[in-house]
Structures are given as structure tokens and as C-alpha cells.
């Protein structure tokens, strides 16, 4: 059964690694829902967080294929409930949303968002939360016809226990 799986890979920060990883998805015709790459606390080591809908059997093979990439240090896969996941989103909201009264700061509090910029035509809000929370606000603003633009980061994640002993990788790569 297709479910969301999140692959977390630690790699050398080198040119081409991203391509090699996405090729592993592409050749199995799996669409990547979200992808985030950033440097870890260890200099020269990148962390990939890749979310996609697939089966457990496939994600297992995918993780092994990614692990076979020379520059990849460690790979594991998770379901969303195993991870603490947060995303950031920015919403550009038409000023008419605020015409009906209500101060901007109280509206933003109500939405669980933070105000970033105010212009005559629009207000930009920022919200941090789970994907569901972010989508919920997006849907609400869209229904009211006031969402002008919207952008979302990939997931920032932490495992409830640990994402693996990345610091000990120099001894083994399994």
C-alpha cells in the first residue's frame, strides 16, 4: 500500500550527489513530494530529507540503492509519525481580508501565524507547523479568495530517539 515515507540521508557535500539520489526515485517512477538539503552540524556533511508516497518494500530498496552511492554515508527511512516534522510557509494575503475589521495582529494570532510584512495591497504572514496545519490555513485563505501567493519549505525533522549515530560513521558504513 502506498504511504508517505521519509528518507533521511547523510552524504558528503559534493557536486552530483543530489542527482544520483533523485535518479534512484526517477528510475522507479516515484514522485518526490518534498525535498530539503542542508548542511549538518558536521562541516562537509549534508542531510537530505526526502518525502515520497510509495510502498514499504520499495522504500527499502530505494534506501539501499541510495546507500550504494559512493558519497552517501548513511540512509534510513521513516513514516511521518516516527519523526517530529515542521515546515515553514509564507502566505501573501490580500489586504481585503482585513477590511472587515479586526486588527492584523489579532487576526494573525488567531491564525497561528506571524506577520512579516505589510504593504498597501497585501500582508505576508509566516506560519510554522506540521504540513496539515500549514495546508489547513492555506485552504481556508483560498476558500475566502484572499491568498495571492503561497510558498512552503521542505520538512525539517528530528527523530524522537535519534537519527542515527552520524558522528560514528567513520568506523562503518553498513
Amino acid at each position: 500500500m502506498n504511504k508517505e515515507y521519509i528518507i533521511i540521508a547523510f552524504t558528503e557535500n559534493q557536486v552530483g550527489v543530489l542527482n544520483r539520489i533523485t535518479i534512484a526515485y526517477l528510475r522507479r517512477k516515484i514522485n518526490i513530494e518534498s525535498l530539503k538539503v542542508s548542511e549538518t552540524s558536521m562541516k562537509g556533511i549534508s542531510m537530505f530529507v526526502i518525502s515520497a508516497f510509495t510502498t514499504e518494500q520499495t522504500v527499502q530498496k530505494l534506501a539501499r540503492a541510495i546507500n550504494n552511492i559512493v558519497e552517501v554515508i548513511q540512509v534510513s527511512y521513516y513514516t511521518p509519525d516516527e519523526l517530529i516534522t515542521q515546515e515553514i510557509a509564507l502566505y501573501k494575503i490580500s489586504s481585503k481580508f482585513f477590511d472587515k475589521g479586526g486588527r492584523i495582529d489579532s487576526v494573525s494570532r488567531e491564525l497561528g501565524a506571524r506577520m512579516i510584512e505589510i504593504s498597501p495591497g497585501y500582508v505576508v504572514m509566516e506560519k510554522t507547523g506540521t504540513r496539515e496545519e500549514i495546508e489547513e490555513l492555506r485552504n481556508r485563505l483560498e476558500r475566502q479568495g484572499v491568498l495571492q501567493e503561497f510558498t512552503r519549505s521542505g520538512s525539517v525533522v528530528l527523530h524522537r530517539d535519534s537519527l542515527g549515530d552520524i558522528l560514528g560513521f567513520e568506523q562503518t558504513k553498513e
Partner: protein
Amino acid sequence: MANKTRISGSDALLKSLMAEGTDVIFGYPGGQVIPLYDRLYDYKDKITHILTRHEQGAAHAAQGYARATGKVGVCISTSGPGATNLLTGIADAMLDSTPLVCITGQVPSSILGTDAFQEADIVSMSMPITKWNYQVTTASEIASAVAKAFYIARSGRPGPVLIDITKNAQVEEVDFAYRPCTGLRSYNPKPKMNCPTSEVVELINASKRPLILAGQGVKLAGAEQALIEFAEIGNIPVATTLMGISAIPNSHPLFVGNLGMHGNVAPNEMTQEADLLIAVGMRFSDRITGAIKDYAPNAKIIHIDIDPAELGKNLRCDIPVHADALDALEAFKVGLKYVERKEWFAFAKEKAEIEKENVKGFCGEARDGFITMSQVIQKLAEVEEANAVIVTDVGQNQMFSARYSKFNQTRSFITSGGLGTMGFGLPAAMGAKVGVPEREVVAVLGDGGFQMTMQELGTIMQNKIGVKILVLNNSYLGMVRQWQQLFFNSRYSFTELENPDFAKIAAAYNIPSKRIIKPEELESALREMKEAKGSYFLEVAVFPQENVFPMVPAGASLSNLLMSED
């Protein structure tokens, strides 16, 4: 560490290759590698450069060289079309775990990405079919890139790597010092065995019907002798995959034949009856397993492979052993008991008899006055006394060669197993002969595959490569024709070939040749070919409608193998 000297990037590349033990390069010059070729001119006494007639030929020749010698094959091409022409060979090497270092020229780094003349993004294109690749844009990166390339190509599960070198990096000067690569922190090619050895050995000792499936990993690990000892100690029958052929001599009493689609009846039926499969350096490809859900229904599976991604990839796996084949076989020898298994060996014998009685061609007879392909290969094996290196193309010529060739030594059967590349045979045989000049090397080709890369006859002529060329001419793309006959109501859609006079082509290249058509000419022609000092071209006109049997139809279970057309 060597003393630093100031030299050009091209010199740095050639010195780096020499430091890795390269003495043969297969290549083809072009605009973006002229500086490199200019320097190569001064290395003629140290590096033999074989000028092929097409870059695909260079890649396949490097593969043949690597497969015959166990060394890393090296090929060079220019940028753009030269580089893209290497791709088929690289893909082939990737699937067949062949160590290659491919060097491509590239446009100067200042104009990368501008659609410059003969610019192709070969790094992106080769990414899915290389184990590793890298673009060098400054001369200072050359030595370390080559060191890494060789280390990655030959360690762990071997494979092709590609280094793309911009023209400016070839001409710039650099302080050169070579340091071989001995390890990378993100890459562990030599896993420590961590499986319960005694548990595995007990399982083997308790098995009534075990079968060893030996793949190419046995050869890559240099574990041929260990395999034989392991099988002998435990008294366990051995079957080989297509890529594993020649890892154990055909004459060995424990050898029961080849696995898979056109393998032998005994090992395929044994797979279905076995209570234990010991898979060594093989990957359960669909050509081996047939319908995976019906495969080996009664067996526990011990799967030994150096590539952890193979364990459980295609087939369930009861005991995954992530290890080098040699390490695993040595470890499992300890405590292994000799078990008689009379009934099991009787089963093997009975199935071998069934094959002999039911499969046309098994006894190498002529048909309707025509020579048959099975007859040619069996006679060739007899004439060569199991000592030759047999390099095949793809299709019926390949399957007949796999079925009826005989081998005494390892690394003697070279074929395109995973990718199934028509056109592989002739250039790969050429490369193999360059690698093992003291051995007899025979290219067994069909009339179709031969014509895909027959321009390499020029390479054979110019470099006086003493490879023997045997073309089995049935005027068909025989394997496709066979499928059309069996599964598409004999509708021979575009599989019939009108061929040129091959003898004239061989003559144009000054290669002595013969064409035979009568069964009584066969043996003397094969002997004449064997005795020829240099290259020799033998065309055998064969029975056009011969099919390879037994056959497991694509997607069918191993239990449903066909013995004949009827």
C-alpha cells in the same frame, strides 16, 4: 610520496594511469582530447593505445580486457558524440559489474553549459550507469580523481567510472605527485562478515537437497578455488549463472550445469526441489528465476553478496550474508560436513538424462543437411579442448555458447549478461585477446550482432590482434525469430537478414577467412581456425530455423520449461 614535478594536465593523467598499472588504453581521438593524444605520443613505449573504429568498440574492448584479466579496463574518447558513443559499453559494464575507467574530453571550463561545439553533458548522462563519475575542470584535480576512480572501479562490487576532463585542464600545468586512494569515509567496499556462521553451517549440514548457485561474484572475488573446496567438503552440487560460467570447470563431478532461461534441466529442476539454495555472488535476475513467486518454493535461501542492495532485492532471503564471496566461503567451510545425498545426486542425473533425450541439438547433430549452431559450439569445445576464452555476442549464438562450451579455467566465458548488448562480441573479444595474448580467444557471433560492430575488423587488422572470429550465419535475428515462432504465430516481422559476402569483407581487412556450409567441413575448418597464427574469420552457414532449448518462457515458472517446439 613522489617528488613534485611541474607538468601538463595531460602528462599528469598519463602518469596517474601508469601509477595504477595501466599499460593498455582503448580509445579514439577527437577535438577535445587532442592535447592528451599529443602527450600520449611520447608514451608509446609505456602505454599501448589501441585505436578502435568507434568509441563503442573502445568501451566493449576495455570490458573484454577487464573481464579476461581481472584488471581495470581503460578507454578514452573525445567530448560530445565520442562520449555518448561510450554509453552502451558503460551501461553494459554497470550491469555486469565490470571495472572500467572511462576518460572523456570536455569543452574548456570557461564555455561549459553554452552548447559549445561537441559539448554534451556526459556527467549527467552517465550518472545512472556509472558507479561514480566526476568532472575535472583544473589540472590540479587530475591525480586525485584518477586515484579515486581506480579505487572505486575495482573495489567492492566493481563497476564503471567516468572522468570528464575539460580541455583547459589537459593543457594547464600542475605540480604533480601521485598518491593512490586507499579509502573514502563514505564508502565501505570490504564489509566485515557479521552473520552467525555456525548457524549457517548447521543449516547446510542438515540440508538434504542443497544447491550452490555460483555467479560472477565468485570470479570477481577470486573465490573459484574456495568455491570448489567448499562444494567438495560438503558434497554440494554447483550450478552457475550465465555470468558465473567458467568459475568451475565443466568436468567437475559436482557441476550440474547452468541456470536460467536457457540453462540446463537439472539445475533448474533442482532449484524447484531444493531445500536450500546457497547463492554466491549472483543477483537472482529475472533470466535466472523466471516467475519469482513460483521460484524455489521449498528452499531456504542463503544469499552471499558484497552489494547489500542485492540482498532481498529480487527474492526473499532467509540468511543475507553481506560479504565478499571469498571471505564467506572460507568462513562457511569451517565445520562443514560431508553428506552423502545419494537421492539428490540421482535426481540430478535423471534430469540430465531427460535433457539429453528430449533436447534437439544436445548431441550436436546436423539437421536437413545443414550444420546446426549447437553442433558448431560442441565441435569447437572439442577442438579447443576447453582451453579457449569464448566471447559471445547476444542471442542464440550466446545461449548455444553458454550451453555447449567447455571450460577448464576461470574468466574464460565473456558475454553481455545483464544488458544483452548486440555488437558486444567482436570488440570485447578483441580486448580480451589484448589482455591475454597467450590464450586462444574466439568470438562467437551471430550475423546480426557481428554487423553492429564489424568496423572493428579494422582495429584487428591494424593492431594485428590474433582473435578468432566465428560467425554463425542463419540469416536471421535468430533469438527474436525464435520468440516469433513460439509466441507470435511464426510471424517473422523484420527478423530476416539479407547479408553481404562476409568473406569479401574479411578479405578487405586482410583477415584469412573461410565459409562453410556442409557438416563434413566443420571439424577441419575449426581446426584450421585454431591453428591460424593471427586472426581468422570463419563463417558457418547454419540451419536457419534452429531454436535454443530448453527454454523457460519469459515470466513462466522454472517448472514449466519447454524442451522443444512441439
